[in-house]
């Protein structure tokens, strides 16, 4: 499965990072959580691969988030892994509060 062009992914990752850098907590973890919640595994893989190839154009926080995702192949990052990292940082996940059926 394709993941979209690297330029597009970098743009989107930076855009997401742009929101989270202003937030309390650890922005890279929250960015990684957002990517895990909303991006397909191939998109995340492509971002990690892009980082490994130099990562030109990624903001520092977006690059750090990609690095977090890299830690947990082959699934790139399981939601649980990021969830644990997130819980450790004391931040709730905006994308997927587990078990929540808030509507």
């Amino acid at each position, binding site marked *: 499965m394709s993941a979209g062009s690297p330029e597009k992914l970098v743009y989107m990752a930076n855009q*997401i990072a*742009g929101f989270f850098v202003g937030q*309390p907590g650890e922005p890279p973890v929250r960015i990684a959580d957002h990517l895990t919640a*909303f991006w*397909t595994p191939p998109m995340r893989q492509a971002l990690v691969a892009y980082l490994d190839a130099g990562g030109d154009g990624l903001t520092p926080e977006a690059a750090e988030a990609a690095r977090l995702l890299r830690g947990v192949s082959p699934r790139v990052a399981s939601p649980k892994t990021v969830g644990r990292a997130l819980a450790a940082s004391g931040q709730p996940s905006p994308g997927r509060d*587990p078990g929540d*059926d*808030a509507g």
Partner: protein
Amino acid sequence: MPLVREIDYGTPASKAEATVALTIDGQAVTVPAGTSVMRAAQEMGTTIPRLCATDMMDAFGSCRLCLVEIEGRAGAPASCTTPVAEGMVVHTQTPKLAKLRKGVMELYISDHPLDCLTCAANGDCELQDMAGAVGLREVRYGYQGENHLDEAKDESNPYFTYDPSKCIVCSRCVRACDEVQGTFALTIAGRGFASRVSASQSEPFLDSECVSCGACVQACPTATLTEKSVIEIGTPEHSVITTCAYCGVGCAFKAEMRGEELVRMVPYKDGAANHGHSCVKGRFAWGYAAHKERILNPMIRASTAEPWREVSWEEAIAHTAAEFKRIQAKYGRQAVGGVTSSRCTNEETFLVQKLIRAGFGNNNVDTCARVCHSPTGYGLKTTFGTSAGTQDFDTVEHVDVAVIIGANPTDAHPVFASRLKQQLRPREEGGGGARLIVIDPRRTELVRTPHVHADHHLALRPGTNVAVLTAMAHVIVTEGLADEAFVRERCDWDEYRDWAAFVAEPRHSPEATEPLTGVPADELRAAARLYATGGNAAIYYGLGVTEHSQGSTAVIAIANLAMATGNIGKPGVGVNPLRGQNNVQGSCDMGSFPHELSGYRHVADDTARTMFEELWGVDIDPEPGMRINNMLDAAVEGAFKGMYIQGEDIMQSDPNTSHVAAGLEAMECVVVQDLFLSETAAYAHVFLPGSTFLEKNGTFTNAERRIQLVRKAMAPKNGYEDWEVTQLLSNALGYPMAYGHPAEIMDEIARLTPTFAGVSFDLLEKVGSVQWPCNQVQPTGTPVMHMAGFVRGRGKFVVTEYIPTDEKTGPRFPLLLTTGRILSQYNVGAQTRRTANVVWHDEDVLEIHPHDAEVRGVRDGDWVKLQSRAGATTLRAQITDRVSPGVVYTTFHHPATQANVVTTDYSDWATNCPEYKVTAVQVAVSNGPSEWQERYGDFVTRSRRIAEEPKVLEPKILEPGE
């Protein structure tokens, strides 16, 4: 069911809690104080004759027919204008009253054509009924006196006629236009015998300010204002109560039928969203259902270069299933996906996502909310814990300050706009006296409309919502206007303090942000103070908030404002997204997004996913699937090959048309299930004909989370309801489904979705409608959310840094284009363009400020080329100061213009909702269509060809000698 005739109580219900006891015709009756004698009598089952009274509007007291006698009072007062009093003794029928009423009726009938047998209202005429009720047997004055019988009909409106010869000047139409609709287009011109109903300045209805909502036609007691369909067909004989398939207001209608022929749609008074009102679309624009361009047979073709070939349902379904299987075998499980429709029912939407998750075995499902309100879902879930608006529409009656942001309700949500206008009119004129703040780059109608004007119109530069909203928060926090007691009780205090410190920074002040937003600082300060201190303040917003690169941030900023001022969790306040399509709320609720199951539970949520896996007997991918834009990107790159698109026209509605076209062209099997050969269908390989809302059972969920039944009024002209087609396809794909009725699908939804746990067709039949959450705790639904506390626990304040869009104006593209809707047309126009609504809007035009027009040499009506970095189109210019200098505006209803050729790929950071509302453009005088328009026009014409198959003759036994 038989023809539904709702009881008309004559005057509106009193809202008083105190009651009054009286005697009417010897019967004791107790009613709320302030009730009219007429209504009190009706409540005990006695109809007092009347002509000018109806319970949709205030008593008027002009027809003199509803007279009663009250013991101890002189004369015969009008029962409509006389309120009940304790101990009152009323007689509704006495010899004196009978004589008086007969006399009144004689006068009416002496100036009325006696053509009852050939009159369109025969059998449905209150004048006729009253003549019968009062026992009119002769008219002593004769019929030769001065009269109005020769007055000419006005047939200019495509949907109704105005026949002044039948008018009794009861003023019901005028009052309906004023009180119910709020347009004030009608008046009574002249005096005494010369009094006549007049549209605007005695203009034909079509040329007047009339918006064709139909309220006057509904109110008319005679055949003066009559639906043309009734004139043509005759009166209806049975009714089907159903829900409108246009916008997110969710009006309930009586589909009034003669056999399987729809005679007219009349708004249903028991409809909890519309209370008997309607707009031109729902009331009149249903002719598309029988339009000659509707496709009724399935069609397939190997490539879009070939003409379509009509085939049987069996062949079409077998072919489609085979194609999807082939593609998945060759390119992998993830190479196919689908789009659910916000125009279809909850049950149909649920089934499509089930087909994709269980049948295709992936999560590549998305819906049109991606391009409209996905930021609402993200923003409100993050802050409040719920992906939906907080109030019901009725809450507007308790609003003291209304804030309308990036929404144009009079055009896009007209029936709600009428309710809102009632609340905004001054108290001394019978309105609610609420104040109004409009935040919009355009001077929308609500900014100044009869008897309503905005206290503050913040005409911001497109793309600066977050800066404006954060500046409002700055004023509220720095001027000490926040409701800290509410925040301490309901929200996370530490997060609030972080947020308050952030918004209080001087860089967020109105003075500091004025240069970027274009909003005068003092005006913004005044608006923020009014919002924070003006009483119950409710925010209503639309796509002008969401369709930006910071759409989700803006939704969060709105939620922050509501929490900081305590405007949440009670009637008359809240955060109210005005949802665009009829079932866009429902399509989101039903699990149409690639990352979540029904009820907004992430696919990675093991507890939720396991429930589905157990019931469906399949493994569900715990990873999010592709969004529409991801699917198109992947298609362009060759990895995504097949798509099942139910009832959406992504080619016209999604941004950057040429990119969408490239994606669709790259696929091997595009399946479109729709009513017409849409723009997307031009790129399709399989066309499965869809059914209209009149031809199916199911439910829609409106913008206030209200679940309402859609009832079948006629058999599907295409042979199947849309859910049946999905079921056929699923079975052919090897994932069995065996639903017998949509009620069974709803039962499954209720089993799997805690917020829908109490919902069933039986319940909806019984109570009419419910607003989710509907479960054991809230068995009849939840009109207002977060009453006792936020759904997520504590309300979450989130910092909202303004990040300007990367779509920048510059020397080549100096203007900002923003897009929207118009009253008479709906979305991509597939339905409304195939109705007489085109008389109001037969092409998209470009609104441009006189200054910008002048420097470009553009005159009103000129063809202009609208060029952005993404593409160009041509359309006619309309010079108006509704838009500010530097801003141009158009609608996206017509494929000939295709405004989305011009819009870009920029999108919301969190949800990829496209940035439709900000495109840098240049405008220049043009003398012809753009290259894209010419190329596309040729392509679509070729692509829509249907092969003329030789007719298959019935087998015939030849006789000797023949």
